[in-house]
């Protein structure tokens, strides 16, 4: 099946150093550093860039001296990469730089600002991301018997991936078992501290081109499929698993099911074709949920699939191989969302320093989650479709 995006490739990716704090940086400066790194990785001079996408897009156009240049100031993750692909597929641009970074945003006294957006209906009840996602997880546990141990097992796998990754903020902190996760302090039941994402600082960027230019790159990675699901703005209304506004549609708890099916159809592939899944991991439960929503198992089978060992190194579907937001990094301004795609690109190139999936040819990456009422899915391949 042909699709205009099948002529679009990712030819450069870069993560800056990631750390709890990056003194001297702000979100724009670390995004720019990531952008220059991605261009270096692609072997493309900055002067060839004729489109920039990301929160810092206009800053990048100015500071890299690219004007006149297309800019799209998107704060989203995978949808920003889709924007870049559209600019190329529609021949508005030839080389698009997608960049994001987060720095200088955190304090030690209150939760990260993006976890508690101001909203009158949730503010008075102390809602924040962990509680929002917990309300979804609890409902799944009630409906399917999913256990805290299954949640903890997913967290332990990802945190151990980060433990082994020398580039991870929490490198060397493990390895972790499910019992370690269950022994960590309770945050918002059923989530213990180690079931939750961390916060950190860093940047991530990617370079996209059309096939004419990408064919010069032996390690170009191709866009096979992509789609997004939203049920509304995140963190402003009750997170209700069974909320089903579209007649005959999937409930909010299954957000991403429709997107994954659409992405697979666009790629002409199915879940069985995926070699590695760079799932977004805001909370441990979301790994179980995504296995089900994206069709890797049936509803209710996500917990047992995690406990079977399928998602670990050497399993049938290794997930979040760099340690994800739980261990690798979580800079907060879309960078951690781009990092799922950047890691998938490296898996398909075969150059991950740790947890490389031998011979990986198809990767699924995702952003979002049920507590945030959105999910973005992208399928990438090592061969041109």
């Amino acid at each position: 099946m042909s699709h205009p995006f099948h002529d679009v490739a990712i030819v450069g990716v870069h993560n800056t150093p990631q750390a709890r704090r990056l003194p001297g940086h702000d979100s724009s400066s670390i995004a720019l550093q990531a952008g220059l790194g991605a261009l270096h990785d692609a072997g493309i001079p900055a002067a060839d860039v004729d489109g920039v996408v990301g929160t810092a897009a206009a800053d990048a156009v100015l500071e890299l001296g690219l004007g006149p240049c297309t800019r799209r100031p998107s704060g989203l993750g995978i949808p920003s990469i889709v924007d870049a692909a559209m600019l190329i597929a529609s021949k508005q641009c030839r080389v698009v730089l997608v960049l994001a970074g987060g720095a200088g945003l955190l304090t030690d006294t209150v939760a990260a600002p993006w976890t508690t957006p101001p909203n009158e209906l949730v503010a008075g009840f102390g809602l924040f991301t962990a509680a929002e996602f917990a309300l979804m997880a609890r409902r799944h546990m009630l409906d399917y018997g999913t256990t805290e141990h299954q949640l903890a097992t997913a967290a332990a796998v990802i945190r151990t991936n980060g433990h082994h990754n020398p580039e991870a903020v929490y490198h060397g902190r493990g390895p972790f078992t499910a019992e370690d996760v269950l022994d960590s302090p309770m945050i918002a039941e059923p989530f213990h501290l180690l079931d939750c994402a961390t916060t950190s600082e860093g940047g991530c960027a990617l370079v996209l081109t059309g096939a004419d230019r990408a064919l010069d790159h032996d390690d170009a990675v191709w866009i096979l499929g992509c789609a997004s699901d939203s049920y509304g703005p995140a963190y402003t209304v009750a997170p209700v698993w069974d909320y089903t506004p579209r007649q005959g549609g999937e409930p909010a708890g299954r957000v991403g099911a429709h997107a994954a099916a659409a992405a697979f159809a666009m790629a002409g592939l199915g879940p069985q074709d995926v070699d590695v899944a760079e799932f977004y991991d805001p909370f441990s439960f979301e790994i179980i949920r995504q296995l089900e929503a994206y069709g890797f198992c049936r509803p209710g089978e996500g917990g047992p699939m995690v406990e079977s060992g399928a998602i670990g190194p050497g399993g049938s579907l290794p997930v979040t191989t760099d340690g994800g937001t739980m261990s690798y990094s979580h800079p907060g301004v879309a960078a951690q969302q781009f990092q799922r795609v950047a890691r998938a690109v490296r898996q398909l190139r075969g150059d991950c320093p740790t947890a490389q999936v031998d011979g990986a040819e198809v990767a699924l990456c995702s952003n979002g989650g049920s507590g945030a009422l959105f999910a973005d899915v992208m399928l990438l391949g090592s061969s041109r479709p």
Partner: protein
Amino acid sequence: MSTAHTPVLVPQPTGIPLPVPSGRSQPFWEGCRKGRLVLPTCSNCGARALRAFAVCSACHQTTLGWEPSGGRGSLYSWTVVWRPPHPALVVPYAPAVIALDEGWWFLSAVVGCAPDTLHEGMALEVAFHPASETIDLPYFHPLGG
């Protein structure tokens, strides 16, 4: 923190981050001040809304109004927070989604029982507690408790 000697869940003290009522939702907050729970409801088709929508998401008419709720329902989902996002919030507290008897969901927090007694389907009713001089928050207690 151990859950072995959990206290009874109580409303938050004053000083927590408070709702800033929008123009659209004034009837909701005025209802709370008067001890009445009202739900955004379409006067054309009867559909409910998760907040004060400008348009009914079922019939797409601009006929959203407010209908009184009996204030009773059952526990649909919950969490117990032990580490708060803001230092003014006292733990533990239990944000919850309540399945109202009217057939709609409502986000609140459960008070008046111990955290380890929370269970699916638990019968609950609304009670209003002042959070500031102008805001009363609709919490849910065990029915008859």
